[in-house]
């Protein structure tokens, strides 16, 4: 029997990011995904990033590493401003660089929701 896939979200930064994460989450739920908290270990992690300060950049790296550790088969998708601006920087972060489970995608994907 197949179970419903699960998804967890984390939003960094502004109110706009919060509204967009919600819109993305709604799409996942409408397509049968079960929404879980970040702590609970989901099949898919979506991290919506911010790049307004270097502090926001650093938090992103920490979250991606945490998400990769929650479940050894989880896929982690990094979207948002930092992913748009410096995708290779995220891909090269320690703990992220060796994992094909992590993908960093720019605005096109986020905008198409």
């Amino acid at each position, binding site marked *: 029997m197949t179970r419903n896939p699960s998804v967890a979200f984390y939003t960094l930064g502004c*109110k706009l990011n919060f*509204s967009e994460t919600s819109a993305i989450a709604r799409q996942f739920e409408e*397509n049968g995904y079960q929404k879980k908290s970040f702590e609970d270990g989901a099949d898919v992690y979506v991290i919506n990033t911010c790049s307004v*300060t270097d502090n926001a950049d650093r938090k992103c790296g920490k979250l991606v590493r945490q998400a990769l550790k929650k479940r050894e088969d989880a*896929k982690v998708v990094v979207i948002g401003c930092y992913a748009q601006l*410096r995708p290779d920087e995220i*891909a090269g972060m320690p703990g992220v660089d060796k994992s094909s489970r992590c*993908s960093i995608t720019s605005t096109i994907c986020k905008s198409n929701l």
Partner: protein
Amino acid sequence: MLDYINDLQEQPVTDKALVYASSIDEVDFYVDAYSYGDRTRTFLKVQDGCDYGCAFCTIPMARGNSRSDTVDNVVEQAENIAASEVREVVLTGVNIGDFGKGNSGGRKKQEQFIDLIRALDDVEGIERYRISSIEPNLLTNEIIEFVAQSKRFVPHFHVPLQSGSNKMLNKMRRRYLRELYADRVDAIKTHMPDCCIGVDVIVGFPGETEEDFLATYNFLNELDVSYLHVFTYSERPGTAAAGMGGPVPNEVRKERTRMLRGLSAKKRRYFYDQHIGSQRQVLMESENKDGWLHGFTENYVKVRFPYDAALINQTRQVTLQQIADDGNVDIVMTDEQIPA
């Protein structure tokens, strides 16, 4: 996004993270959104991207040019929100005063921000709207006067200043001088003496001398504003400011941040103090924080009340009693419930 996730599941396992990069120049569309999960309040996106070229800011490179939803579509979303139990809508965007350039952006405005707020004010079932943040040069008298007589737009503005020194405002490539800012604050307070005004300010921008910083400090100290959001400047690759000389040492940036945060606490206390004894409407939120329930008045005074689940997401007529030791305001509640 879901197709993309499905594609990912089929990716062969390799030994490096995958990057799907696309140029921000290709983004010529608009996607609507609003937040959910909070019973009390939602962030409703009305605009995205920015056509300004502020020297410190990386967001136009991340989000593209200024695009907007249409008035009709925002109203439709507000009607959906009105059908839920959410009582407060916060209008959200990157530069919402620049609303109206259409889904793909452009130089010509098809609609104006004032058209949007007029239309939203007529949506039944939304109790409150907040305009999250609006550039001072786009905050027209027309908008201020509309909010002053509006049924639903609350007396609260958040207006970025960034610096109180004209020299720094020029270097930052902001589109106004401090005199314009002071004039906007005056206009707001003339029409709405009770209005809460929040200010964004950056400290430690390249070339900011002690004198420039003190100009900001003194300007804000004199200005009738209610609180500050203080940002410690941080270099962003690819911005004009990143190439400017005269970086401010990190310790100095931190000290200036500390000073302005102190000023903010003082400003907020003064603002709260002015309203002690007055009657206000408070929208209570849901979180139980150490036995307290919190809420905000229309003009953004944060109040506390002993936790009572029956009060969650209720709007009540209250009297502001005193500033408590945690900085929030204690209230006396009447039984009168304000219907949504």
